[in-house]
């Protein structure tokens, strides 16, 4: 059997569809979490959802359903703790993280299941996805995308300034809970492909990658979704290709692909930010004394390599700590 033959297999097709949907949904919600500086909320919900999966294993019901219920409850609880708490909010969240993970592992043991069963949920699994799961994933993705993109003006306002949004007449708490619930839903969506412990990476890393190059929220949001799709589909294919030789989980591969994309764009982002700082126009200040250097052997121009920074009605060429403005035959020090 070759790599290409893999695509004729039903479970591989299902996994690909699930990965694509996950790659779309997780970064869409992730962008709003990062905007609110709650990048780790997804991680917390993922930990809590482990208990949900374990409860499913214990009671013999579908772990996806129990995971959704517990994840949504956990997300709402975390949001309420965050809203009430001031200084100890993060400690309360940490308690919930560890409680969720420990409870999950404990209950799985009580259910008489080994760590291997849980592992498929913790790190994702290719062949665990049934066609019912795919439909379920698709439906949840549609819900997440419709809400996240359709309500983006409201969610953006709430995520960037709660006080302002409240005075503008928005129900801030409802929107905060909505974000938390959507995060819980998209985490359960991603559970099958990336796994609960790594799902938060798919919410945060694509956003971090996208904002290296983007300057606007809109571009960051859609860029993150593109990065998420590429990382999850690419990671899945990579893990399938590697699986001929070694046993690799799709989750870690997807996350590593996303991180590699971040690593590739980061230097570019650093360079872009440095350049935009350098090229910020100088303030126009009137009545500066007229100074000109004695001799200036270099002729500045469009392609002389020195940044030409706007300054009022002309440009200053920046080099070696000087700002040289062309003035007739010579340069003025600005």
């Amino acid at each position: 059997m070759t790599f290409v033959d893999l695509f004729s297999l039903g479970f591989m097709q299902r996994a690909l569809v699930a990965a694509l949907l996950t790659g779309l949904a997780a970064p869409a919600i992730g962008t709003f979490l990062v905007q609110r500086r709650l990048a780790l909320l997804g991680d917390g919900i993922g930990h809590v959802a482990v208990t949900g999966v374990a409860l499913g294993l214990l009671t013999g019901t579908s772990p996806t359903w129990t995971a959704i219920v517990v994840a949504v409850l956990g997300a709402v609880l975390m949001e309420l703790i965050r809203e009430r708490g001031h200084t100890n909010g993060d400690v309360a969240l940490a308690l919930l993280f560890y409680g969720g993970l420990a409870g999950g592992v404990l209950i799985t043991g009580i259910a008489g299941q080994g760590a291997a069963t849980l592992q498929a949920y913790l790190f994702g699994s290719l062949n665990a996805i049934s066609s019912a799961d795919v439909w379920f994933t698709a439906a949840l993705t549609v819900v997440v995308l419709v809400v996240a993109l359709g309500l983006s003006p409201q969610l953006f306002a709430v995520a960037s300034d709660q006080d302002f949004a409240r005075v503008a007449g928005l129900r801030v708490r409802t929107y905060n809970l909505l974000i938390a619930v959507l995060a819980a839903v998209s985490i359960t969506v991603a559970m099958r492909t990336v796994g609960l412990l790594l799902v938060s990476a798919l919410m945060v890393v694509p956003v971090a990658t996208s904002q290296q190059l983007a300057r606007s929220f809109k571009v960051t949001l859609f860029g993150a979704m593109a990065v998420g799709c590429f990382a999850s589909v690419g990671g899945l294919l990579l893990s399938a290709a590697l699986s001929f030789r070694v046993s690799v989980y799709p989750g870690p591969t997807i996350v590593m692909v996303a991180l590699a994309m971040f690593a590739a764009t980061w230097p570019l982002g650093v360079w872009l930010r440095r350049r935009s700082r350098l090229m910020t126009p100088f303030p126009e200040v009137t009545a500066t004394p007229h100074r000109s250097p004695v001799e200036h052997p270099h002729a500045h121009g469009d392609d002389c390599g020195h940044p030409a920074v706007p300054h009022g009605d002309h440009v200053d060429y920046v080099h070696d700590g000087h700002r040289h403005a062309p003035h007739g035959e010579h340069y003025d020090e600005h």
Partner: protein
Amino acid sequence: MSTADPAPVVLEQVSVSIGGRPILRDVDLSVGTGDTVTLLGPNGSGKSTLVRAVTGLLPHTRGTVRLFGTPIQDFTDWQRIGFVPQRSTATGGVPATVREVVASGRVGRRKLLRPTSRADRRAVESALEVVGLADRSSYGVSQLSGGQQQRVLIARALAGEPELLVLDEPTAGVDLPHQQALADALGRLKAQGATILLVAHEIGPMMRLIDRSVVMRDGLVAYDGPPLTQEVAAHTHHAHDHDDHHDHGVPGGHDHAPHVSSPLDFERGHHR
């Protein structure tokens, strides 16, 4: 607007408690249509608490707060109010352009799941014009200076086309040229007939806009009348100011912006 319209802000015997501690006690205040009123007073005097009560961010324990004639608990016309919160940064965890931040000010007027309308775009453009940032609309907010970011926040409030603008310390940490730009923006608004309630620490170039000053001290209104500068406001109630106000990270009780060059401040130094 006709003179029969109810005043944008009316407070009658309003008390506000935070965590059971009474902060504002029996405050009466009214801001008429088209007025520009400054709230002055040292840190901890209740200026910001008053603003948060007026904007509905804090519940009041006694008295009535009326906005445009409606008790605040029944008030739903929030798009008539524009709010510029204190010291909030315009930047979030994700980059956003100036235009995007300003456009989020339309959120009170937008219907759910509807695309941006032409009216939305026009309001955003004109808000950017008023604060003088129209040429920076595609810049990332984080690329702007603190004073420019403050103007972005004012433009965001203006984009909602409010009749009443409430600003909580818009000049904090803003240098003089940018304070001038801020004052110019507020002057243009005032000329358009907006009502402005402004909490200020330093008035500076705003002085010529102001119709009335209200001085808060320890949760009470200590003065309500013709405009005062911050220095006069601070010294009018100087005798009581030493012990009972709360400091917020400023050691030595120097709550007011220090104006070392003024003769009053010089004398005050000797008294201590």
